[in-house]
C-alpha cells in the first residue's frame, strides 16, 4: 500500500506557479484566409467551376504559344477546300473564311481578352479603391469630387475610345488606356458610397475618439469590411470588360487587325452568321463559358470573403 503510494507520488512532480499561463485565454483559433478558403471549398459545384476556370485559363495561356496563331498569317487562303469547314476530327472547331483553324483563333483571342480584362480590372480597382476610400471619408472632398465624377463619367466613351485609338494607334496599349481612363471614377464613386455608409458607425466613432489616424481607419477599419462588396464588383467587372472589348471591336476600335481577340473574332464572323453559324457561335460559346465561370467563382469568393459566413 505504502509502496504503491510512493510509486504514485513518483509519477507526479510539483508544478511551478506560472503567472503568464494564468493570463492565457483559450479561444478557438481563427484565421481569416483559412476560413475564406474553407467556406469556398465547402461547395462542390464551386470547386468544379473553379477547376474548369483554372483549366481554361491555363489552356488559353499555353495553346496560343504552341499554335503561334496570328490573324494576318493565312497560309490556306488560296485553297478553297480548306475554307468554312464544319467542326470535325481534324478541325475541332472547323475553319474560317481564310482557311485558318477556328480553334487556334479562339484560344489566341481568349488569351488577349483575358489579359486585357485582368489588367484593366486590376488598374481600375486599385485606383478606384484608393481614391474612393479617401473620397468617402472626407466631406470636404466630396463636394468637388462629385463634380469630377460628373465630368469624367460623362465624357462620351466612344469618342474617347476613337480618339485614343487614333492618337496611340490600335493595340493593347490604347485599349487598356481606353478602358481605364474613365472607368476608375465609377469604381471610386461606388466605393465612396460604401465607405460613407459605414464610416459613421459606432465602432468607427469610437476608434476616432481613441485617436486613430484617418489612414489607419481606412485601411484597418473600413476596407476589410468591404472585401466582399469589392469581390462582387470584380466578379462583375471582368466579364463586363470582355463584353466591352467585343463592343469596341464591333465598332472597329479593338486591337486592330494584327492581333487576335475574342471580340475581333466575334465581330468578324458576324457576317457569316447565316451561312456558317458555327463560326459565330463557337467564339461566343467560349467567351460565355469564360465569363460565366469567372463570374460564379468571383461571386462565391465574395460570399466566402464575408466573415459573417464563417461561423
Amino acid at each position, binding site marked *: 500500500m505504502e509502496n504503491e503510494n510512493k510509486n504514485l507520488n513518483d509519477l507526479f512532480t510539483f508544478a511551478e506557479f506560472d503567472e503568464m499561463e494564468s493570463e492565457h485565454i483559450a479561444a478557438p483559433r481563427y484565421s481569416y484566409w483559412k476560413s475564406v478558403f474553407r467556406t469556398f471549398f465547402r461547395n462542390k459545384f464551386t470547386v468544379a467551376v473553379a477547376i474548369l476556370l483554372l483549366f481554361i485559363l491555363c489552356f488559353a495561356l499555353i495553346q496560343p504559344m504552341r499554335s503561334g496563331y496570328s490573324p494576318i498569317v493565312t497560309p490556306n487562303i488560296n485553297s478553297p477546300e480548306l475554307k468554312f469547314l464544319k467542326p470535325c476530327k481534324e478541325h475541332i472547331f472547323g475553319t474560317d473564311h481564310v482557311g485558318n483553324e477556328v480553334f487556334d483563333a479562339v484560344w489566341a483571342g481568349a488569351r488577349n481578352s483575358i489579359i486585357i480584362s485582368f489588367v484593366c480590372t486590376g488598374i481600375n480597382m486599385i485606383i478606384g479603391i484608393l481614391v474612393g476610400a479617401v473620397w468617402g471619408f472626407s466631406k470636404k472632398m466630396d463636394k468637388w469630387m462629385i463634380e469630377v465624377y460628373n465630368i469624367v463619367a460623362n465624357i*462620351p466613351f*466612344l*469618342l474617347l475610345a*476613337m480618339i485614343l485609338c487614333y492618337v496611340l494607334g490600335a493595340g493593347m496599349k490604347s485599349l487598356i488606356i481606353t478602358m481605364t481612363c474613365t472607368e476608375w471614377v465609377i469604381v471610386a464613386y461606388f466605393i465612396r458610397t460604401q465607405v460613407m455608409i459605414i464610416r459613421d458607425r459606432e465602432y468607427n466613432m469610437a476608434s476616432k475618439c481613441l485617436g486613430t489616424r484617418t489612414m489607419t481607419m481606412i485601411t484597418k477599419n473600413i476596407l476589410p469590411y468591404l472585401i466582399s462588396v469589392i469581390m462582387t464588383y470584380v466578379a462583375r467587372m471582368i*466579364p463586363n470588360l470582355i463584353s466591352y472589348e467585343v463592343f469596341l471591336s*464591333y465598332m472597329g476600335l479593338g486591337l486592330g487587325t494584327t492581333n487576335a481577340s475574342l471580340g475581333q473574332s466575334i465581330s468578324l464572323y458576324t457576317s457569316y452568321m447565316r451561312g456558317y453559324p458555327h463560326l459565330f457561335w463557337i467564339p461566343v460559346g467560349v467567351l460565355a463559358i469564360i465569363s460565366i465561370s469567372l463570374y460564379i467563382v468571383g461571386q462565391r469568393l465574395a460570399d466566402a470573403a464575408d466573415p459573417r459566413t464563417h461561423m
Partner: protein
Amino acid sequence: MSKGYFWKRLLRSLLSILIIMLIVFTMVYTLVPRENIFFEDSTYRKLSSKSDDKTEYVYSTWQKLGYLDYVRINDYALTLYEAASPEINEAVKPDSKESKDFVDLYTSKGYTVETYLGNGRYYAYKDVPVIKRMALWLSQLIKIDTPMSVKDPNNPDLKRGLSFGRTPSGGLALIGSGTTHKYLLYTDTNFPWIHQNIIKLNFGTSYPTYQGMEVIRVLFQSQGTEVKRPVTFETGYESESGIIFGTLTYKEKLDRMDKKKFVDNYATYETKKNQPSMIGTSFLMGIFAMVLAYGLGLPFGLLMARRKDKLADKLGMVYIIFIIAVPSLAYIYLFRYLMTSAFDLPTVFTTYGPGDIRSWILPVISLSLPSIAGLMLWTRRYVVDQMNSDYVKFAKAKGLNQGEIFRGHIFKNAIIPIAHGIPASLAGCITGAIITEAIYSVGGMGKMLPSAINQYNNVMIIALAFMFSTVSVLSVLAGDILITKVDPRISLSEKAGRS
C-alpha cells in the same frame, strides 16, 4: 430640399457640362488631325489637281469650322481700295508694296504667312484657341428670332413687325415679318399642338456628311419619303405637296415656282415624311423598352426575393448571369434567331418600316433584356436587405401577413434606390442603342455618334456630346430630387443634420 441647395447644385451641374464640353472641344479640335475632315468631302477630291483652288478651299473650310483665322491678300487689299479697281490688281501681286505691308502686319500679329503655290500671292492664318472656339460656339448656341433677324440687302423695304393671324392650314399663329421664321407661334393638329419658332438651339451646320444641313434638323427632321396631300397655297395655287406651313423661313432668292406659291419671301419649308426623326425613333423605342423593363424587372425581382433560394430565385439568377456574362451582340443575335424562327416576325426593322407594330416588337424586347436583368438584380438585393430589418420583424410580430408587409413596408423602402435611376434611364432613351439599332437596322440615334466620329463630322460630335452630357448630368440631379420626393427622410443638403 432647400431652394438654395437646388440652385447651387444646378449651377455646379452647368459648370460640369461646360468643363465636359471644353474637354470634348480639346479632343476634337486638337487631337484629331485637321486634314482628316476632308476624307469624306467630294468637293475636295474633285479639286485635288488645281492647287490654288484647293488651298483656298481647304483654308476657307477650316475657317468656317472654326479651326483658324484665314486672311488673303485680296481681303487686305479690299480694305484699302475699292473693289475691281486697277490698284487692287496691282496690290495683290506678290512683289507689291501692299504685299510687303500685309506680310509685316500679319507676322507681327502672330499669323503664319504663306504663298499660294500657283500665283505666288500671300495669305495668312492663325489657329483659333480652343477656349475662344468654344466661347463662340456657346454664344451662338441659343438663337432668338426677332423682326430684325433677316438682313437681306436686296430687300431694303421689308416690313418689320409682328401680327396675329392664321396659317394656311387653319391654325392660329403669331406671324412675323423680318423674322427668319414666318410663323413664330402656331397651332396645328400634330403633337404637341402648339409649336414655337422663337427660341431655337443652333448647333451649326453639319460637315462633311449631311453637308449644308443644320445639325438640329438632321436629328429632329422626319425621315423617309414625302407624304403629299392636295394643298392650296397663299396665292391660290393648288398642288400636291407635303409642306408644313409652320416651318416657312425666309429665302433671299426666289425662283419661278416660289413666286407661284408664295406672296412674300418666306418660301423655304420642311416637308412631312412618313418616318419619325432619328431622335424620335430612338426615343420611342427607348420608352417602350423602359416600360417593359420596369414592368417585368420589378415584379420578377420581388418574386425572386420572396422565393429566395427556391426555384424562381435560381432561374432568375441564371438569366441575370447569362445577360451579364454574354456580350449583348451575341445574346441579341441569339434572341433574334430564336424569335424569328418561332414567330412570324421580321428580322430587320426596315422590312415593314416604323408604321407597322411587328417591326417594333423584337428591337424593343432586345433593348429591354439587359435592363430587365439589372432591375431584377437590384430589386432583389434591396428587398432582401429590407426583409432582414427590424421593422419588418416588428410588423410580422404585430400579425401582418406576408402580402401586407411586402406592399406596405418592404416595397416602399426598396423602391427608393430604384426610383433614383428612373430619370437617368428616361434620359438614356435619346442617346439610342448602338448595337440593337445596328443589328435590326433601325434608323435611330445610335449610329450617329460613331459615324460622326468616323467621318470627322466635328460639328455633329460637339452637338451630340453637348446633348448627351447635358441630359445625363441633369438626370442625376433629377434622380436626387426624385428620391427626396419618394422618401422625405432623405436630405441632400449638409445643414439638415444628416450627413
